[in-house]
């Protein structure tokens, strides 16, 4: 597969998911913006059918009312990449865990839980990974007040 195939793939997925999926590409990545209820479904498909066997990067961004989950997927050895994003509301910060598809999600989701306070449904061991267990708050949130 090449980068053009990634664009074909994206439009294939668009016709399958309809309003639940939007495509947004910049000069670096083809980005799939998916509704959070379809996240696990889409990721399973990208892994099983399209061969994205590596969850390279998993992180989150705080946009105030909403959090954005950001996933960068790669395929070894096809050497193609895609970015998947989903938005989750601040008052209910929950997303599906991808640990059953890529075990690589394990600590990365724990990190997002630890620092951003997003819970992952289906994660078997969702505890803090970098900060002490009794730490109060999630430092990467924009409303976290820095001291010192």
């Amino acid at each position: 597969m090449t980068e053009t195939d990634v664009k074909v793939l994206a439009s294939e997925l668009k016709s399958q998911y309809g309003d639940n999926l939007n495509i947004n590409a910049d000069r670096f990545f083809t980005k799939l913006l998916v509704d959070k209820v379809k996240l696990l479904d889409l990721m399973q498909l990208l892994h099983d059918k399209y061969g994205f066997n590596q969850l390279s990067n998993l992180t989150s961004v705080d946009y105030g009312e909403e959090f954005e989950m950001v996933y960068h997927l790669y395929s070894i050895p096809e050497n193609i990449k895609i970015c998947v994003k989903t938005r989750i509301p601040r008052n209910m910060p929950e997303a599906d865990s991808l640990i059953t598809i890529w075990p690589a999600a394990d600590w990365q989701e724990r990190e997002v839980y630890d620092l951003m306070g997003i819970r992952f449904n289906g994660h078997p061991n969702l505890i803090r990974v970098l900060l002490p267990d009794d730490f109060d708050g999630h430092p990467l949130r924009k409303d976290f007040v820095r001291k010192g």
Partner: protein
Amino acid sequence: MFDTDIYSVNVGPVHPSTHGGLHAEAIMNGEIIEDVIVHLGYVHRSVEKIAEGKTYQQYVPYTARLDYLATNLPVMGYCQTVEKLLGIEIPERAEYIRVIMAELSRIASHQIAVAATGIDLGATTGLMYAMRDRERIMDIFAMTGGQRLLSSYIRIGGVAADIPEGFIPAVNDIVNDIPKMMDEYNDLLTGNEIWGARMKGVGVLKAEDAIAYGVTGPNLRASGISYDLRKAEPYSIYDRFDFVVPTRNSGDSLARWQVRIEEIGESGRIIKQALDGMPEGEIKGKVPKNLKPEAGAEVYHHIESSKGELGYYIVSDGGAKPYRLHVRAPSFINLMVLPLISRGGVFQDIITNIATLDPILGESDR
């Protein structure tokens, strides 16, 4: 037969084999490892939060402290990410200098891996030999950046200053001695029977597990996957150099050890070619005084660091400071397989496995 209870043994956080603040809790059934629980965070400095309060330029020295044993690699990765985000072009000469510094860092980092594995497995001479050789590279860093360990010599747009007099002969000397260094490490340790007993078949990581867990770098290549970002997605000027990607199929500790030693040789070849091809000219491109990427711009860029895929994800809100910066740290993700590869082994295998996974805690804990 004796009945054995399940009990736990702590390795670290303060223990020489943990390479600086890693706490592995081994759940033991007699002599056999049932599981390993990894406790991280002893060197957490919240570098991602700090980034939100610094300008793009101010943040450069913080990246040097991610992987303090290969300091030019994380700095180069960060500078390239910012350059990509802003579309900054850098001069040819700077690219060549960067590649030389990056590959010297990779060699120094792998020499530390050789040294640390040596001391962890009781081969103190191995430590001495590798540290002696690494010191020559530290001298080069002191020459260019003014300090041995944490030089922020690579800057956004190029490098801080041109290479000083005496740089090229000194680097040439090191490169010419690399085959000799590799022979020495191999003669001293690789073929040693005790070394083999501690390493062969220990901590086997299967190729499919390596990919599923996101393992990258020498650890992935030792499991038989020839994946190196310098080849797969050539950044900087890596497409101009002739080098091979060493791999092994056994996925055990010995394979990881051997891949690293061979990579030292390949880095030497790259440096030699870079020294030969380096043009004269500028060492810094045109960089605006205030770096302000457009609002909403974001980038994910990754490089092949000595530990694996080192990525930076930066989101801009149009201001002078990153709105969000995330570091995809290879050591953090590589460490995830420590329990997987240790289960079923004996206690001493944990020490071998930590040493050959070669994590750097500054990066995994951030």
